[in-house]
């Protein structure tokens, strides 16, 4: 088992990174009046871990026994029936699902399936905790219609059903839903926190860590805890007695983007742009979100650009990213950025030549 999973805190008490949040949540849950929750924060910050810990806090260890169900639902939509395949993880008291898997049909999942699940009140002999929990992942990817249909469900069945929503960015969740939830922001862990966690793991594993090594990993991890732990383990696997200047293996896609960036800087012409386009497609094909690509590309370019240009490039990158989020075909906008930056780099070069 990877360290990421091995040392994942199971209970709210064991949480290392967001201790304050965890304590608040604990109080909230133990008082038995838990509102709907909306967890949001960047990936690798520990949202899911916290959610699972909360659920465990609610229902005890039985919440960990889950089964995977892959079920096809028949949904009546107007005159026709639609088959929707949906995979859920469910224990006796909670159900996890990812409604955005259904793509543009997510509306039906929310309208029919979630409602169906929310309706059924769990029967508990003790009469205690007479509610169930629905965990919805990637709510920000839900279409607007789906989100609209969600809010009625949230109100109507709130007596015995709690929704825990999880997403990266709350800005894509509608105002209406946000106001019905208790918003919990999970920050990306700071580098110190990451270092702490790594030290903790090292101690548990009985490793000798040279000073500053964990800090270097934390620095390279982009403040993603998962990434930090994974690279830590990678280092461990590659060379155990750590040396303080041991190389930390880079992410492949980041390397690739830096190649692209140097391509861009080398020559600015439509031909080159075409090659860059092919490479960008490669990245996008491999499930790397376009926002990340754009961001990373900007970062790489900034390293190579003159100081005067940086501001401008940032501006345009932001401009195109905004358009990308509004639009549909990310490649158009990424290319817009790329070409724009090429152009600016060229202009700059020309100016220098004049001077």
């Amino acid at each position, binding site marked *: 088992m990877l360290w990421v999973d091995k040392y994942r805190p199971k209970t709210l008490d064991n949480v290392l990174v967001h201790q304050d949040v965890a304590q608040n949540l604990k109080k909230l849950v133990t008082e038995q009046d838990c509102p709907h929750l909306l967890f949001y924060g960047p990936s690798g910050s520990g949202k899911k871990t916290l959610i699972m810990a909360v659920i465990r806090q609610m229902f005890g260890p039985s919440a960990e*026994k*889950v089964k*995977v169900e892959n079920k096809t639902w028949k949904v009546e939509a107007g005159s026709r029936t639609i088959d929707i395949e949906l995979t859920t993880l469910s224990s006796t008291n909670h159900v996890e699902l990812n409604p955005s898997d259904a793509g543009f049909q997510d509306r039906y999942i929310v309208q029919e399936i979630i409602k169906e699940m929310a309706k059924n009140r769990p029967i508990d002999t003790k009469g205690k905790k007479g509610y169930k929990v629905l965990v919805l992942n990637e709510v920000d990817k839900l279409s607007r219609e789906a989100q609209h249909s969600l809010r009625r469900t949230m109100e109507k069945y709130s007596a015995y059903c709690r929704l825990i929503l999880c997403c990266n960015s709350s800005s894509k969740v509608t105002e209406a839903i946000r106001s019905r939830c208790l918003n919990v922001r999970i920050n990306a862990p700071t580098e110190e926190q990451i270092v702490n966690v790594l030290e903790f793991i090292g101690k548990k594993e009985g490793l000798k860590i040279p000073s500053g090594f964990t800090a270097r990993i934390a620095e390279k991890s982009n403040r993603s805890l998962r990434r930090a732990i994974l690279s830590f*383990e990678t280092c461990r696997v590659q060379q155990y007695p750590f040396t303080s200047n041991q190389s930390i293996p880079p992410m492949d*896609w980041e390397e690739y983007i830096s190649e692209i960036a140097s391509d861009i800087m080398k020559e600015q012409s439509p031909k080159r742009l075409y090659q860059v386009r092919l490479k960008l497609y*490669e990245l996008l094909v491999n499930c790397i979100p376009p926002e990340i690509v754009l961001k990373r590309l900007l970062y790489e370019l900034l390293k190579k650009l003159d100081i005067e240009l940086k501001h401008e490039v940032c501006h345009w990158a932001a401009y*195109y990213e905004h358009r990308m989020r509004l639009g549909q075909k990310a490649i158009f906008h990424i290319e817009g950025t790329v070409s724009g930056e*090429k152009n600016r780099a*060229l202009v700059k070069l020309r100016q220098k030549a004049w001077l």
Partner: protein
Amino acid sequence: MDMDIPLPEELEFLEANYNAHEDYLDLEPPEPYPDEDLQVEEEAGQSKSPSSEGPPSSPGVLTNIQKRSRSTDGPDASILEDAGQSDEKRSRTVQAEVAQADEDWLRYSPPEESDPMVEEGAGAVVEEKLVWRYASEIDGDFIPVTAPSGGDRAYVKINVVDKEERRKKLGVIVQSGGLILEPINVLLQKVEQEAFTKALKASSGGQSDTILPETPAVHEQLWVDKYAPSTFTELLSDEQTNREVLLWLKQWDSCVFGSEVKSTPADVLSALRRHSSTVQHRKFSDSKFPSKNRGSRWNKEDFSHSSDVDDKDTSKGIQDLWNKKSRSTGPPEQKILLLCGPPGLGKTTLAHVAAKHCGYRVVEVNASDDRSSSVIEAKILDVVQMNSVTVDSRPKCLVIDEIDGALGDGKGAVEVILKMVSADRKSDLGKENVSKEENRQRTSTKKGRKIAPLLRPVICICNDLYAPALRPLRQIAKVHIFVQPTVSRVVSRLKHICNKEQMKTSSIALTGLAEYTECDIRSCLNTLQFLNKKKETLNVLEIGSQVVGRKDMSRSAFDIWKEIFQKRNIKRERRSNCRTQSTPSEFEFLHSLISNRGDYDLIVDGIHENILQLHYHDPLMQKTVKCLSSLGVSDLLHQHIMRTQQMPLLVYQPAIAIIVHRLVAQVQKPNIEWPKSYYRFRTMLMEKTETLRSWYYKIPPHISRHLSTKSFVEESISPLLHILSPSTLRPVAVNLLSDKEKNDLFQLISTMVSYSLTYRNIKTNSQPGDPRHEATLDASVLAFDPPINDFINFKGYKSCHYVLALAMKQVLVHEVEKQRILRVNTGRSGNLTDACNKENQVHLGEDTSGSQAAKAGNACAIAKNTEKPTSLSILRQSKPTKPTISSDLGSNTNAATASLNSKSSRNMKRSNGSSSFFDRFRKMNTKGSQNANNVVQEEETLARDLRPLLFKFNELGACEDKPAFDVVMVFYIMVHLKTIYSFEIIM
């Protein structure tokens, strides 16, 4: 004929065949311009008019008759008349023909139109002579005749006719009794009747007078039909295409005529030959015709002499002759001809004319017919198999017009055709080795009744080659794309027609018109006719307003991209400038073009795909930036429109394409590709996401819930791969490793198990550039089972991942399986309450194991090494109910199966006594055991045999013999059952 047909024999046949089948007379030697041809005909017509025009009181009637006879019978009668009359003075024998010709049009004229004629003809009938109103019109002997009722006087020409010859020619039995054919009393009766009807008419004369001026307007033909080319040489479409179509049709001859036409006996053939040649010779020597007309004369003579049957025989004979010569050629490779091009260029006309030319009868199916697949199938079968019993026994040629028209219907047609072609292909392939021609004959006769392969040419016509329904057809058909005929050709034809219709035009105006309609002949002619009706002349400056409407047609996406990327010719530009304000400017042109097409998403995609391949001058990348940014705008707009459903905003989409046009359009021809990359990206992304997702389902939920498809590649994949292939691990046997290394190995294995990863044997598509793979480049390579390493295989990127040695991988595979089985079992024994969950999983797994089994079956043939792990992984699915004691057995079972051949699959007969698990296993087993039953004979074994068996398992651990997979599985489960049983006994 100066068509580009390779074989002289073919040419000869073409000529002969054509003459025989068609009643046309236009077999003049080659003429460069069809117009000239027409004019010759016209001149002939004009020259005859003073000398031999019909009664002046009814010239309209005469011309009408001529027209009619032309349209009904083909031009033979009238042309014969022309020819005959123009040469009238030269020889007296021709007179007979004149008489005959006149008789012809008399015969064809409908009764009400020939009313005055008949009246006069009362006398004419008497001697079958020609009647004129004025004596001066007749040169030679004549007698005056007075009509009995009206007292009108007419003059009848006397011809000296050789009776014998005439009888032969006309096939009319002349009564030898007297001068008149009918008894006088009959004639008198007729005359009385005529008088009566005339009186009737006169009483209602006022009425008919008012109707009369309207009728010609109704009956007037469209010029398009009137001047439609009826012969091959008249075709206006591109010469090259015409010839190729003809050539394709000719390739069918051996198949069509060869299999169908009975060979004519040689003596008949020669007799016919002799006959025709003598006739021709006589004609030629008698009358000094210009050599140009010789062929036609000959044909006419021949035709008039020989009876219907004779005629057919001649043609058949010649066909047969030709067939003998060209035996070796079969039907063309592509059995379908697909003509495509914008409307009005003459596709349908070409198909019809060419088919007729080659001696086919055209059967047309167009959009107005029912084109559902059943109907069309019947129709095609009709065409292919049936032979008409009526007079017209020419083979048929199917023309499917507007095949792209209606999607649903057209599809039916396409499907049927495809089916037939593929049936044909199969039969071809099946008997390749037999002599080809015979083979074809046999299949065509035999199979014709069953699946009906295509035995007749099928011509499909469409406007849009890239219509989705046509996609399959496009691959098998011979495609001809029509290009616009040159403006000069169109103009000369238009001019000719205008002259004929006595419409005043200038060639400049006609050129303008042709350009305006983009050489759409149909719309040109319609416009001209319309203007003619309005008594207007075509005005160069006002074409835009005069022409009824611009064609509102949508072009294919390729055309649009071409227009966007290509500047219009400067020459054309200038010419369009001289058309001044009425012509749409470049902007409007593009705008209407794009908005007519409408599919903005596709157009923008195409621009995006191709724009960077263009050669435009852009040193500062400013143009590129602008273009791409406007594409971005277009995308935003599109998204916004789709989200808010504000369709009116779509009008702004074409403008974006026009921006691009202004920026990058070049004069040179762009090389445009269909935008595939975006769709490829989409599908590949889907594929990879699906891979990830299905992998997640396999990982135990407490791990998988923390993974997301979005961030997996971003954060996890690279470290994970590093962790999974540690460079420190030595590829040696497990027992040789140090404690620390063992520990590492264990760690690695546990990771792989928890992430449900394993290695699997795959065929390498050899990556020769990669040195790391070189060691393992023999037949197959072990790769990660969910192919997670694909996610970092960017094109043109070398990752620095260490790849484990093959031996190490094998060890890992082995250990992982072992571990996996162990873990599942411990998990089970740990919490029994979970049993029902697991049971679910098992049942779920059953399906997958089925498919895996199939895979494994294939795999075991390729590589025996990996068969064990694969099979084990499937076995694992059925494992959970097994007590821990059997887990050790698990790894050995495979080997043990060899020894187990003699053992029966006892689970079938075992009583239900032991536990409920058995029930479940039996269910799962039935399928497998049924397979196994063939292999393994059922044999009763006693429970006491079981313990020795266990020992055997351990002993045979090293044995490498592998039986077929399903046997393994069955045995495994069987053994498993036994073990439980024995276990319980021991307990």
